């Protein structure tokens, strides 16, 4: 009797389980959502070229989501990409410690890569694109370049 009850329950469970298809949600991305709109509040972008300020042409990477927290600004005018964030004079703190970014370059896309010297997987931010790093990829960037 007990076996029969267990059998019925298992059958019911299996039917219930299989009758509810798993919804195929799009997986999270490197950038949770690369924005073209102004859904996120962009930080003020300065025309003054100096470290610590997000300028036009910079790739500005933040240690917290929504372009908040301490920021590392990689200046296109200094280098057209950086092969190893951990060795950058001012911005080493952001290596494997990033959760959002904005490509403030007006004319080129920025590619942020999981490993040094443009290796591993690279995520693209179009000119003016910005977004949060998805949880799966947060704190997992080591180099970038513009192209």
């Amino acid at each position: 009797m007990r076996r029969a009850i267990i059998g019925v329950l298992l059958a019911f469970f299996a039917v219930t389980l299989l009758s509810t298809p798993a919804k195929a949600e799009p997986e999270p991305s490197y950038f949770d959502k690369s924005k073209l709109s102004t859904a996120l509040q962009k930080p003020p972008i300065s025309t003054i070229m100096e470290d610590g300020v997000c300028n036009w042409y910079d790739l500005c990477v933040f240690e917290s989501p929504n372009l908040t927290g301490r920021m590392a600004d990689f200046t296109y005018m200094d280098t057209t990409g950086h092969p190893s964030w951990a060795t950058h004079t001012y911005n080493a703190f952001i290596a494997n410690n990033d959760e959002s970014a904005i490509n403030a370059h007006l004319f080129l896309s920025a590619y942020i890569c999981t490993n040094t010297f443009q290796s591993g997987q690279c995520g693209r931010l179009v000119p003016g694109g910005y977004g949060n790093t998805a949880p799966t990829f947060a704190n997992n960037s080591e180099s970038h370049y513009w192209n």
Partner: protein
Amino acid sequence: MRRHLAALLTAATALTASCAQALPRSTATPDRTALRLPLDDYQHSPIQGLAVTNAYRVLLIRCAQRHGRILPITSSPRPLVGPRTWTERRYGLTDAADAASYGYGLGPRDPARHPPESAPLDPATIAVITGSGAGHDVPPGGCQEEARKALAMAPAGADPSLPEHLSMLSFQRSRIDSRVRAAVEGWSACMRAAGHSYATPFDPIADPAFRDGTSEKELATARTDLACKKRTNLVGIWLSVESAFQRTMIAQNATALRAAKQANEITLRLAQETLAAVEPASAPSSYRKSPAAPE
């Protein structure tokens, strides 16, 4: 709860299918052009992405000119910087010709070899480009938005970046897969036997001793690296494992990926048409009429 259980069952099925797939036995390292992942068919290759960027710049220049602004860039196509394909440096160094010429570097495609092209812009020009603080004659979003619309970069009903997103995820999953980890350990042991102490194939790329690809030590290490990859079939195993993950993702996101692929094809076609109209005689052939699938 039922959804979670069902999702777990789906994931378990996918994992079983992935595990059940036979790994390639060949110990030949596929050459660069043969290194393709299933999701590569759905997204722009680096070269195609560059074509879109080049077209975007052309449209930006035109728009700014209409509003009386000259941008500090030209409409000439920019050369490719960085990897030529998404798999070229995905599993570390893979290309024998590059290794022989540049070691672990990118040679002429090294971003550091390309000086910045742009001069600082005045606030009025920035306003025309971005639409912020511009006059009434500049549309909302400025020339940026106009160029994006002309290239259909943000279409309704499709997320063009979905293939890249999924590709990111498959890469991360593959890195921690037991078969890939075993292959990486095998490669590391092979390198160690040759006198090089690296835990992963990304470590020699990051080695501060290697910077310009000109030292014999770097070139020799790169040769050993590729020989060890061939002996342990690291690239073949990694590619096979990640391909299985991607095929499952494609099945689970079929509708969204079809839309993304179509959107990317449209954007590429619009970009090619834009570039062809600018310099039909001098535009590189890679910008013309190539299919959305990467080279």
